Every structure is written in structure tokens, then in C-alpha cells.
């Protein structure tokens, strides 16, 4: 087993777990539970290697005081890296405990087994247990020296669909950060500027009622009150009376402006010889800016005790948040503790870090603990958005119809402005404080992962490939990472291109893809999804479409077939999917993730768009930003066909590209035209047909 990066950085068993005298196991992870089920998966891995019950594991996630600083919980890497680290650490812990027990029992460790934490010899309890030995065994030793994880066939808990460890608690009060109460805690609402470059005029006189206070530092404004409703009401009253001057960026349209002002053009991937073909096939696709759209609002609680600052946040990266807070507040990092607490579903870099700085500023301003919460309009207008982008792809075919060369141009802002990334704190309020720090321009992860260009390099066998990434200068909104980064747009463009090439070659689209693949796992998911869909029913308003991708060309494989009916709008009735994620720790949880990605992708493809007039963000509420509703959800059938003894490849982001592509290709099959803009809303259908 390869040593995963987190375990290289935190090599000691004791950095990952300890045994308690009550029989519990205290497990530490830097990966956080964002709704994706990682707490359950990590618990399963540990319980399996240790031979203890699921409920013996007590997991602490994302606590800067105690957790291994694994970095961000992103990129479908939590099982691949974080889970494998825990697997090795817990396997090593078991070996160390059994080694010590063998000495005491004057036997060899191979004669001992563990059952529910009790150490067993010849089928009988020895009287020794993890609990009884917990004080005697030094776990501050390198895990790699002792770890021999179980063979896949010996696992009993990992690989099974146990119930989520946290779902019942999520139905009740008290589990979420949003429900947290501290003694003397007040509630705060920030007041957001109406555009990125708006500047505040004179502050009007505003009398606040008893139990409410204004916090102002430069252009940072917030109302904090003992009562949450009063904080909200007074913040709205004040916001309605403020005088803002707009700057010039407010006239740049996020889509129409994409090609007008290219700052940098970078060739990311370049074969020497882009051969000329007999036939040339091109695709162009534009996707608007999208909102994360978590149902919960961004929330944080901050408490100053003297110079010590404690912040509870539903951040994807508490470690970077701590350092970013230190830089913005000009406060020693060692006096700051950031503790992850669960929030609403997180699909990328949303405003969870921003609200943590807001809470810290408010708590400092009023000298009490403060729970800060954003408003729905803030989430649409002031949080980072998944950036608008445009992807153009061209393939050249030989006389047999095979693709001989390919080039792509991706025009997009960077897909990451995470706090701590590119050495920038990038917390919203930093730009409004008296010593204002401008927000950084952000950056993209380099190929082979890629950011805007993720999955723009085709996973098909093509002899010559070039990919160029163009970056616009003026972007009138905050942009950052959301589920799969550029994958959604790029896979839709590529899978439309494959359909167009197959048409030009006079071949079946799926056979054409298979002819450009030699990876048996890719071929297997494609054939399985095709077979799951069965024979197609034929009607003028019914269409089938296909999409396939291997995420990042190196992670999970997914193929989808979608069936749609087109009336006034596109209705997806069925999606059949086959995935290969290697080892699936919790197969039902993996399918839940894949299907959640499919639903989200259908919603993005058909409905979602942050509306702009020039550079002015017009999206204020869910009424302006419809997402897929209960009555619009298709039947989903999903199969995992990967080998359980293979390396886990991650699941959370593998389905959005293929599902989006399947839907768009189905629309194209019904309408007979190639869509060039998303979303394929009712309004867009009319435009396509005229």
C-alpha cells in the first residue's frame, strides 16, 4: 500500500488515534463531514481495522488544536487520502496493541485476534483489551513501520452499507453549528455592499434599540443584537438607508464579457503535431455563473477570551481558515483555534470561511460571543460563485472517421480563490477593513487535475491534443471552486463533440466512444450503463443521451444514459448510471453521492443561472434562482461495478459531467440542434428552435 500524503505529513499513530480506558477509540481526522458521509466512511475503516464496533469510534474532525492538518476536504479525495491514512494508522495501532498483549501472554501476536476491542486467544477472552492496555502502549511511533491493513476479502465493515452515523442527529436540534449557544452569545448580521467595487458614502444616523449594537470597521458593517430577529430587522433597516457609489467593474457582463478582455492565455497541454484531418468538427458551450445554493445559510460562532480567539465554522479547511484569520486580524495564529462544526451541505468554496471572519469581527466589536449568519440574498450575491465559462473544442477526423487531433480553448476565471490558496487569505471582509487587503485573483490547480480546464484534456485515445486556457481580466463577481470545477462544462462539451464526430463518421455514438478507449474499466461502465437503459422507446418528444467521463482522467469512472421528454420544458424521466470508484467503503453512501451529483447536474443544466444586468447581480432569492424540485426528479438507477480490492478513487464529483452531458445530448437528439448555451430552460428551448 502506498503511503498517502496525509500520513507522510503526520506519520505517528498517535497523531490519528488513541485508545480510551472506557473502551472507546478517539479517532482524529482533518477531513470534515460536509453532508457527503465521510464521517461514516472513516468510522467504518477504523472499526474494521481495529475490530471494534462502529459506535466505539469517537471521531473528531477538523479541530486545529488536535486534528492532523490534512488541508481542505475537496476533490473527492477524502477516502483516497484521508481514509487510507486512517486505515494505515488504525492497522498499525492494532498491531502495536497485539504485540504488547503477546508479550504479556508469552505468545506470538499471530495467535491473537480482536473482537469488539477484547483480545482473544484460541477463541477465549484473555482478559486483555484495548481499554486495559490503553495506558501501556506507546502509539507515538511511525504507522508505516507497523501497518499491515487487512486484505480486502477480510474486511467486514468497510465495503458494507452501514447506516450513516450522523443522519438521525441531523433530524434534530443541537447537531448543527447553527444551533450552537454560548453563554452571553449575541446574534449578528453583516451588511453587504451591492457590488464588488461599491464604496460606502456617509453613514446615516441610526438609533438602534436596547440590546443591539452597530459594529463598524472601515466599510465592514454589522448589526449585533441579543435577539436574532432584532439583528436581522435592524440590519435590513440600516441597509435600506445606505448610500453606495458603484465602480466601473459593474458594467462588465460575466458571459458577454468573457472573450472581450482576455488577461492571459496559457497553453496547458500541447502535443507537437496537431495533424490536419479530412473532416473538422467543432463545439462551443457557454455555462453561466452558478450559486452553491446550500439550503442552510452560512454561519459561524466566535468567542474572544482575552487574546485567545475560538471560532466554530463549517469550513472545508479549518487549518487555512485559522492562518487566514491570523493574517487579516493581525493576530498570532497560535492564539486562534478553529473548530469544525457541521453546517448545511457544502459543494465547494462557499461563504463558510467569510462568515467566520465576520463573526470574529463582530465578537471583538461587542465584547461577547457572537453567532453570525448570512442572509439568502448574500448567498446569491456576495458568496463566491462557480464562474461563468466557455469551452470550445475542435476534433479532426481521418478518412476512417477516427479522431486524429483535438484542441480545446477554455475561457474562464480561475476556479479557486480559497483562503490560503495562492498565499491569499481571501476572506470577504478583509477588503473592507481600515487596513484593507485586496482579494487575490485566485488560481487553478495545475494539470493533470486542472481547474477551469479540468477534464478539458480528453480521456479518449487521440494522438495529438492541445488545450489552451484563457483568463478574463474583469469579473464582476467573486469566483471559486464548486463541485468538479470546470469538469461539468468541459465534459458536456467533449461528449457533445464525440456525438458530433460519430455523426460525421456515420457511426453509433457509444460504439464510437468505445473505439476511442482501451481502458477496460472505462469500457465496462459505458457498456453497463447502455445495457441498463435497455431498448429505447421512440416518440417525437422522447430522447436518449449519453455521457461518460473518468473524473480528472485519473479518479472515478462514470457513464450515464438519460431519457428525457421535451414539452414546454425539458423533463428528465430516467437516468441509468454505472460507476467504478474502486473500493467503495459504504456502497449505499457512494450511490447517494453519485445520485446527488446527478440531480445537481440536471438542475445546473436545465435551470440554474445567476442573472446579471451588465455586471449587476440580479439574483436575490430562490424565486430568481429555481433549482430542481421534487416533482421534477427522475427515476435513478445506479450500479457500482468497480472491484472492491482496488484503490478507492472517490465519488462525490464524478457524476456531474457525465450526467450533464447525457441530458444535453438527449436534448440535442430530440431537437436536432446542438445547444451552445446553458441552462436549457424553457426560454432557451424557444431560442434554440427559432
Amino acid at each position, binding site marked *: 500500500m502506498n503511503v498517502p500524503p496525509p500520513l507522510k505529513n503526520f506519520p505517528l499513530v498517535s497523531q490519528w488515534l488513541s485508545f480510551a480506558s472506557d473502551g472507546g477509540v478517539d479517532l482524529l481526522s482533518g477531513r470534515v463531514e460536509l453532508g*457527503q458521509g465521510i464521517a461514516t466512511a472513516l468510522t467504518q475503516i477504523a472499526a474494521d481495522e481495529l475490530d471494534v464496533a462502529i459506535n466505539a469510534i469517537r471521531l473528531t474532525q477538523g479541530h486545529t488544536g488536535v486534528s492532523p492538518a490534512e488541508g481542505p476536504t475537496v476533490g473527492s479525495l477524502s477516502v483516497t487520502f484521508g481514509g487510507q491514512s486512517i486505515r494505515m494508522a488504525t492497522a498499525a495501532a492494532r498491531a502495536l496493541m497485539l504485540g504488547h498483549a503477546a508479550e504479556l501472554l508469552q505468545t506470538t501476536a499471530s495467535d491473537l485476534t480482536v473482537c469488539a476491542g477484547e483480545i482473544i486467544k484460541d477463541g477465549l477472552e484473555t482478559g486483555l483489551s484495548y481499554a486495559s492496555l490503553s495506558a501501556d502502549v506507546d502509539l507515538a511511533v511511525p504507522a508505516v513501520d507497523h501497518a499491515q491493513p487487512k486484505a480486502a476479502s477480510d474486511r467486514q465493515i468497510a465495503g458494507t452499507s452501514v447506516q*450513516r452515523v450522523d443522519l438521525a442527529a441531523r*433530524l434534530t436540534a443541537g447537531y448543527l453549528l447553527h444551533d450552537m449557544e454560548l453563554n452571553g452569545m449575541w446574534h449578528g448580521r453583516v451588511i453587504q455592499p451591492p457590488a464588488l467595487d461599491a464604496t460606502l458614502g456617509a453613514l446615516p444616523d441610526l438609533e438602534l434599540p436596547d440590546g443591539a449594537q452597530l459594529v463598524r470597521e472601515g466599510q465592514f458593517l454589522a448589526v449585533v443584537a441579543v435577539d436574532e*430577529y432584532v439583528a*436581522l430587522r435592524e440590519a435590513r433597516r440600516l441597509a435600506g438607508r445606505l448610500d453606495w457609489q458603484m465602480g466601473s467593474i459593474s458594467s462588465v457582463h460575466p458571459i458577454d464579457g468573457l472573450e472581450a478582455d482576455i488577461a492571459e492565455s496559457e497553453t496547458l497541454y500541447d502535443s507537437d503535431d496537431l495533424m490536419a484531418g479530412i473532416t473538422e468538427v467543432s463545439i462551443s458551450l457557454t455555462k453561466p455563473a452558478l450559486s452553491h445554493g446550500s*439550503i442552510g445559510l452560512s454561519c459561524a460562532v466566535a468567542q474572544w477570551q482575552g487574546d485567545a480567539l475560538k471560532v466554530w465554522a463549517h469550513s472545508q479547511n479549518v487549518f487555512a481558515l485559522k492562518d487566514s484569520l491570523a493574517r487579516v486580524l493581525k493576530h498570532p495564529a497560535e492564539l486562534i483555534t478553529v473548530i469544525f462544526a457541521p453546517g448545511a451541505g457544502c459543494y465547494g468554496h462557499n461563504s463558510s470561511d467569510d462568515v467566520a471572519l465576520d463573526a470574529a469581527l463582530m465578537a471583538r466589536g461587542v465584547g461577547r460571543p457572537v453567532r453570525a449568519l448570512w442572509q439568502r440574498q448574500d448567498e446569491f450575491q456576495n458568496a463566491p460563485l462557480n464562474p461563468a465559462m466557455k469551452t470550445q473544442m475542435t476534433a479532426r477526423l481521418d478518412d476512417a472517421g477516427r479522431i486524429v487531433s483535438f484542441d480545446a480553448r477554455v475561457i474562464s476565471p480561475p476556479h479557486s480563490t480559497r483562503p490560503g490558496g495562492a498565499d491569499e487569505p481571501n476572506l470577504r471582509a478583509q477588503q473592507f477593513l481600515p487596513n484593507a487587503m485586496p482579494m487575490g485573483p485566485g488560481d487553478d490547480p495545475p494539470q493533470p487535475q486542472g481547474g477551469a480546464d479540468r477534464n478539458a484534456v480528453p480521456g479518449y485515445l487521440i494522438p495529438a491534443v492541445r488545450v489552451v486556457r484563457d483568463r478574463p481580466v474583469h469579473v464582476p463577481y467573486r469566483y471559486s471552486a464548486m463541485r468538479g470545477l470546470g469538469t461539468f462544462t468541459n465534459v458536456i462539451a467533449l461528449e457533445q463533440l464525440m456525438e458530433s464526430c460519430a455523426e460525421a463518421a456515420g457511426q453509433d455514438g457509444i460504439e464510437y466512444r468505445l473505439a476511442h478507449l482501451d481502458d477496460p474499466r472505462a469500457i465496462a461502465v459505458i457498456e453497463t450503463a447502455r445495457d441498463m437503459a435497455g431498448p429505447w422507446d421512440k416518440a417525437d418528444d422522447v430522447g436518449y443521451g449519453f455521457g461518460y467521463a473518468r473524473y480528472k482522467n485519473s479518479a472515478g469512472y462514470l457513464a450515464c444514459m438519460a431519457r428525457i421528454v421535451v414539452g414546454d420544458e425539458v423533463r428528465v424521466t430516467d437516468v441509468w448510471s454505472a460507476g467504478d470508484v474502486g473500493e467503495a467503503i459504504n456502497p449505499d453512501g457512494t450511490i447517494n453521492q453519485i445520485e446527488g451529483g446527478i440531480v*445537481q447536474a440536471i438542475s445546473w443544466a436545465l435551470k440554474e443561472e445567476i442573472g446579471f444586468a451588465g455586471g449587476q447581480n440580479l439574483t436575490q432569492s430562490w424565486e430568481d434562482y429555481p433549482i430542481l424540485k*421534487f*416533482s421534477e426528479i427522475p427515476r435513478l438507477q445506479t450500479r457500482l461495478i468497480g472491484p472492491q480490492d482496488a484503490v478507492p478513487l472517490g465519488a462525490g464529483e464524478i457524476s456531474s459531467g457525465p450526467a450533464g452531458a447525457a441530458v444535453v445530448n438527449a436534448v440535442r437528439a430530440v431537437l436536432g440542434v446542438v445547444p451552445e448555451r446553458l441552462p436549457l430552460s424553457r426560454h432557451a428551448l424557444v431560442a434554440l428552435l427559432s
Partner: protein
Amino acid sequence: MNEAVAFTLNGKEVRIEGPPAMPLLFALRGQLDHKGTRLGCGEGHCGACTVTLDGVPVTSCDLPISAIAGKNVGTVEGVLAADHPLAAALIRHQAGQCGYCLPGILTRAAALIDQGQCAEDIRNALDANLCRCGAHGRIMAAIREVAS
């Protein structure tokens, strides 16, 4: 000016004080310490704050306390305390990811199940409740199991 309002919460008489325009949600989460009901948008669009008012599902984030005097309010705490079979079914079906929307969905669907509505009608009624993680299919599977 604050107003005192008396009403029934999950079968118990309660009395709160607050500005008449204050939405019920803030009273539930604040004075009444019933935090199972969640704030999602504050505009009645997402359904995360769904409660029942005299048995009818409504959003509580845009329902002023002045409108609930003497009425019966039911929250997710009441649904759970009654051991409604839908709660266990949701967990059995792993019918959620982050679960932020689930108390509102459980409250609405349990009320409609108890009224004898069929699963398809409940599905249409749940258009008032948004779920962003995409767990709709599992939630409906749990509802189909429990609805007659």
C-alpha cells in the same frame, strides 16, 4: 412594542413575547428553544422552516407571531416525539446527505401522510421544500413505504 401571544406548541400551552411582526421561526428557535425548525431563506421559498398550523403545513419564517394566537403549532420535535414512522424510514433509506432540509420535509410529509394523502400528492406538495444535496429519490422511497 412587544406583544404577548399564547398558543399550543406540540400539544402544550406556551406564551411568548415579541414584536408582532416577528416570524414564528425566531420565537421557536429563540425563546422556545425548539431549534429543530431551521432558517433557510427567511422568505417562505425553501421550506426548511416548515411547521404545521392547526395541522396544515406552513412556512414559519414568514408567519408573524401575531397570526398564531390560540392556534396549534406542530414542529419536528413533535413529529419525533410521536415516533412518526416516516422519521425511521428516512434514516433506513439514507434519505439525506446534509439533512438541513429534512426536518421541514419530515414535518410536511408526516402531516400529509396523517391526512391520508397518497405519495404522488405528497411529492407534488414537497415542491415547497428544496433539497440541494439531491436526496429527493430516497426521501420519496421512504414516503412511499409509509404512506398508505
